[in-house]
């Protein structure tokens, strides 16, 4: 008989016997009094204290902080430059030239089939 079979043939009742021992361990209740007397936990208390202190400072700082200033809207200073008649004509001509830029075509030939037939 090999070792594999030995394991599979272990009686299940053995677990029932051991159950009492397990229950005895888990039944032990946690007591605060034990912690109070434990001197090894002092650094932990110090850390907790520091944590709360930092949180307190952070909250205090948030409360003391002044509300953020609204970004000032740029005042539109509409400067009306009066053009002389000659300047105006030159300005209009520049606009006209832009309008007639040869890279733009306003009236391209429509996409129609000139060669279709029914046969």
């Amino acid at each position, binding site marked *: 008989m090999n070792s594999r079979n030995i394991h599979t043939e272990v009686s299940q009742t053995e677990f029932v016997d051991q159950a009492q021992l397990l229950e005895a361990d888990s039944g032990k209740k946690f007591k605060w009094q034990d912690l109070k007397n434990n001197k090894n936990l002092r650094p932990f208390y110090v850390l907790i204290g520091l944590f709360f202190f930092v949180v307190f400072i952070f909250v205090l700082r948030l409360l003391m902080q002044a509300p953020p200033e609204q970004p000032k809207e740029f005042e539109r200073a509409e400067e009306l430059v009066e053009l*002389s008649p*000659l*300047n105006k*004509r*030159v*300005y209009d*001509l*520049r606009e*006209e*030239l832009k309008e*007639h*830029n*040869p*890279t733009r*075509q306003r*009236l*391209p*030939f*429509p996409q*129609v*089939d*000139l*060669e*279709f*037939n*029914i*046969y």
Partner: protein
Amino acid sequence: MYHEKLYRIAYDQNQQLNTLVSIEDVTQKGKSLGIYRDEVLRTYLNLLRLELISTEGVELSLKDKYILRLEETIAYLREHQEILKNLNNRDEVAYSLATFTADQGGLGNLANEILVLLTVGNLQAIYDKSFVIKKDIDKFLEQSEALLSPEIERASFETNRSLDSAKLKLDSFWVDVIRRGQGNWYLSKIYDDLPKTMNPIYVNLSQSISYLNELLNL
């Protein structure tokens, strides 16, 4: 586009099925598409005609020649459309559509030629206006005795030179078109490369207008 789609569907169905119904369908759809095509082209050519009439810078002999061609084409389209509307026979519809293709196959080229004329005409009109403004600026500077200043005199000279250069390019273009453009779609070939061909004139005019502006503000 919608009528063209309908025609394509009918045509494909007829190619596959070749039934009496599909033959009738493709005849109707083809006829309908032909009528709409005439309408679209007529509207488009009329727009071109109006644009050509209102563009000042186009050389007059060319302008008259192309307006006449446009009017002839528009009249042809109107007549073709009327004929097509009254046709019901399949062979007659097919013949009418084939005649259109034979007569108006170069319609795209004609439109492209006119678009080239419009582009150059507009640039010519801007040159003409620039020239008039330069004369007026000279008068203004003379009255204010500003032309006596060497700085302004030099600026005026440079402006004149820039305008002369633009004029030279435009004149050379018109001479070339009149000399070479006799029924061989010469202008239409330019259309394919229009921005590149016209760019030197455009840049020259843009520079001239900047000079005019500077001259006034010196």
